[in-house]
């Protein structure tokens, strides 16, 4: 039996898709709730990057940009060497929900991980999306 390949999580946000879109796709937005510093070239194939004070940085590649409904990127897998070509794919889907937004994040590609790294990465990202989406909601609510 293979590993689960996918993580999916949906949250209801009390803000319209345009605001959620800006939080997900701008350097200012990403640096406020996800990284501590961020830059992004928002077009398919564009590079993006987030970094933290401890020196950790993650390189991303923008894949889908369908404002304000779908934003997708691939990113490095933390437990593999920086030059390893394997990536997971993250896709955000924004649907209007009354005055707010129903935001779904799906991350796929975990099945390609070696067995020794799989559990840590899969569990880490499962917890990670729960806390990151909480931080996103906190960031949007605070403004």
């Amino acid at each position: 039996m293979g590993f689960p390949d996918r993580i999916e999580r949906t949250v209801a946000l009390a803000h319209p898709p345009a605001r959620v879109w800006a939080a997900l796709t701008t350097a200012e937005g990403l640096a406020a709730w996800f990284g501590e510093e961020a830059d992004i070239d928002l077009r398919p194939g564009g590079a993006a990057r987030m970094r933290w004070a401890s020196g950790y940085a993650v390189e991303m590649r923008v894949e889908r940009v369908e404002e304000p409904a779908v934003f997708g990127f691939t990113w490095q897998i933390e437990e593999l060497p920086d030059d390893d070509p394997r990536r997971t794919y993250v896709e955000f889907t924004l649907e209007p929900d009354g005055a707010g937004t129903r935001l779904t994040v799906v991350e796929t590609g975990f099945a390609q991980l070696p067995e020794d790294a799989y559990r840590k990465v899969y569990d880490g990202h499962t917890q990670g999306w729960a806390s990151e989406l909480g931080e996103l909601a906190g960031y949007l609510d605070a403004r």
Partner: protein
Amino acid sequence: MPDDIEVIAEQVFTALADPSRRAILAALASGGPATATDLAARLPITRQAIAKHLGLLTDAGLVTAEPGERRRIRYRLRSAPMKVAQQFLAALARDWDSPLDALKEHLDRGA
């Protein structure tokens, strides 16, 4: 860094509410200063999560980054906010203890 005792205590309790952050603090307490990479190798926590948690722990004043080049930065435990939280708990324990003692005395007298 906050100096208000309530603010410090709240940050300490928020930091300790997360099992990954407790594991990071425990690793720094038992193993001494460590880089984010060392911690990720020792704990079942990804590098990205370690980076996020270290940011929060630094803001709470529970760890401090030693000067150094990126990726080589070592984090060290700071016990000062922990002591503040300890005082906070001690004060609460005192407030609870006296009514409980009075109750016990009352019940003992009635027995």
